[in-house]
């Protein structure tokens, strides 16, 4: 098994608007290694969501390769793609996309429905995942009885149901207030550290993105820049803003005064 869990080669995705062809992804090459936490950033229309859809087998590229766990998924038939989406990929959406007529546990169980797991195994796993994301005791609550942050936690638990190779998160903090935004980022970072889950997150929020390991900047369907992120647990404990050494429990940098993501808070 190679180090790269996800790799694209010369990826093109062109939309046809009548006679006009609009390139959304343009010769895009990308590699995400196992256990990495990567943020994809870029302005509106840069191709972020298109890239995530193609990586998540929700959309097919016009040309190029998408290699997921050593399998080129770009040209697989729909029947194979749905299995890959079920077994290899976990999705987290900006609007949570929970089924309103199912409770939290049932929503988490849903991706396991077409697997070999028995009903009791599915139920047990759903409860474990909900406990892991901090929703113990809320299993029977329907989405409308949960806060936005809690709903996103359920969505994250659902994305982990089949132990996927990678989690693709499309603006997971886009619909959340500041408090919930940081809680969700901490949760994702924690999963990345504790479960070694590979996460690719699309966001336009640079502060959220800064807490990943690697930030990729997309423009006109191409990666135009790449920066190291501030995933503190994997970095030396230094302020990402001014380079000053910081202590594990500090919330703000004592030199520049900017807010820090505390690794101890990240770990649940």
């Amino acid at each position, binding site marked *: 098994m190679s180090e790269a869990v996800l790799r694209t080669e010369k990826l093109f995705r062109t939309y046809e608007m009548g006679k006009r062809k609009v390139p959304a992804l343009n010769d895009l090459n990308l590699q995400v290694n196992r256990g990495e936490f990567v943020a994809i950033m870029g302005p509106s229309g840069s191709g972020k969501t298109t890239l995530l859809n193609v990586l998540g087998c929700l959309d097919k590229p016009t040309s190029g390769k998408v290699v997921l766990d050593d399998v080129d998924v770009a040209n697989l038939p729909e029947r194979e793609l749905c*299995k890959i989406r079920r*077994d290899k990929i976990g999705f987290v959406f900006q609007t949570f996309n929970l089924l309103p007529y199912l409770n939290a546990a049932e929503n988490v169980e849903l991706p396991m429905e077409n697997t070999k797991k028995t009903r009791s195994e599915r139920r047990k796993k759903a409860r474990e995942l909900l406990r892991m994301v901090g929703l113990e005791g809320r299993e029977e609550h329907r989405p409308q009885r949960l806060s936005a942050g809690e709903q996103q936690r359920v969505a994250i638990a659902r994305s982990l149901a089949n132990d996927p190779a990678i989690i693709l998160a499309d603006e997971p903090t886009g619909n959340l207030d500041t408090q919930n935004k940081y809680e969700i980022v901490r949760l994702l970072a924690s999963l990345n550290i504790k479960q070694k889950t590979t996460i690719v997150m699309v966001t336009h929020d640079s502060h959220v993105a800064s807490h990943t390991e690697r930030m990729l900047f997309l423009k006109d369907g191409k990666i135009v820049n790449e920066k190291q992120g501030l995933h503190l647990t994997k970095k030396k404990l230094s302020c990402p803003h001014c380079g000053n050494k910081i202590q594990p429990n500090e919330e703000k940098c004592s030199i520049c005064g900017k807010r820090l993501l505390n690794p101890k808070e990240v770990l649940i």
Partner: protein
Amino acid sequence: MGVLTRAVRNVSRRKMRALLVIIALGFSMAIMVSVPAGIVANQKAAQSMTANFNSTLTTMQEQINKTATLIECQTSRGMFSGGPPGFSPGGSEQQQTYVEESVANEIRSISGVKDVVEFLTVSSKETTSETINGPGGRTFTISRPVYTITGVTLISSFIDGYSILPTNITAGRNLRQGDSGVVLLNPNLTAYLGVGVGDKVEIYGESFLVVGVCDEAGQGRFEARSAYMNITDAQTAASLTGNLSRLDVYAENVSYVDSIAEVISLAYTSLQVTTYKDRLSQLDNTQTMYNETLASAQATVSQTETVATQEIMIAVVATSLIVLLFMLYTVRERTKEIGTLKAIGFSNWNVMSQFVFEGMLLSLVAGVVGIAIGTVGAPLLSGILLPQISPFGSRGNSQFQPGGANAGNFGNFGILGVSTVTVTPGLQTMLIAIGAAVLLGALGSLYPAWRAARTRPAEAMRYE
């Protein structure tokens, strides 16, 4: 959390919408349930009618065979002329005529005559008017005498040998030789007078003792109110001493009947003479009338089947369309949910089965509701939706009353009888309707489900 549970939750999620769809579907299903029941009812009515007609004709034939030597000689008005005896449609009054007793003696002297039985039938001058409801909402006003008395020659050999008195005695006893000052009443008259056996009644100002009540065959609610008595008593009461209204002449054997009838007809023009040949002719006429009625009934049954087929087809199309439109709307409304399901690994088949199950579930519930509506409203619905068999050729209500035979009276083969056929959906029809509902639900939701399954997840996720 299986597909069925999700289907139940989805259908029950929007209760008012589901309820409206179920009611709409339910009415379609009710048509499917009640219309076949209406066909069955019409078929049964036609069968019942055929059976009754056959029975009537057989009885008539037997009666004709038994009375082959009887020559009926009747003065005017006593003879059947389109209505029941004593029945005076429209209130028009006919002049009753009589013959003298000497005529009976003269007839006895004709060669080949075995016996002559004398009768005097007189109706009271006073009448009652009543309104009755006929088929198709039509109403009739009938006027009939308060009572009709029949005086009979009470001789034992006549009573035993010929059918000169009613035989079905329900209370008391029949008349017998030597009776005087006593009467035998039919139920209509006992009901009208409010008397029973042992009571005294006053007829034509004379007092009579009621000795028995007879149940005349084919006696309907609007038939005559009859009293039977000794002929002498009748002549005295009606002030018609020495007069007769009818003579039953019995020949030695059938070979004399024609010659005797010819002599009587020539000698006594005031008498209307009927023999077994006339009765056979009447039987033929009756048979022709019955055949026409049955042909009309069969035509109605065929028409019913055609109309029913069309109505069921419309109901089937309506049901499928309702499910189709509802499910199309549901699929459109839940596009994002479909995208989510596909994103988390649901296959096209999983998504499709989800929507097909929902359509089937909706139709199943509608089927049960439809059966409930159909069972309760079957008579009304089939009455509105289907042509009904009617002996009068018009649309009747849902309960058809095929003909009842009046065996003892050739003049009154009433086709309004007593047996009824009620429109009730059978268990088999209900089970078929449930099956059809589920099948139509599946068919109606197939296309929307297929569309849902074909939805491209990336597009579905963008849908707002």
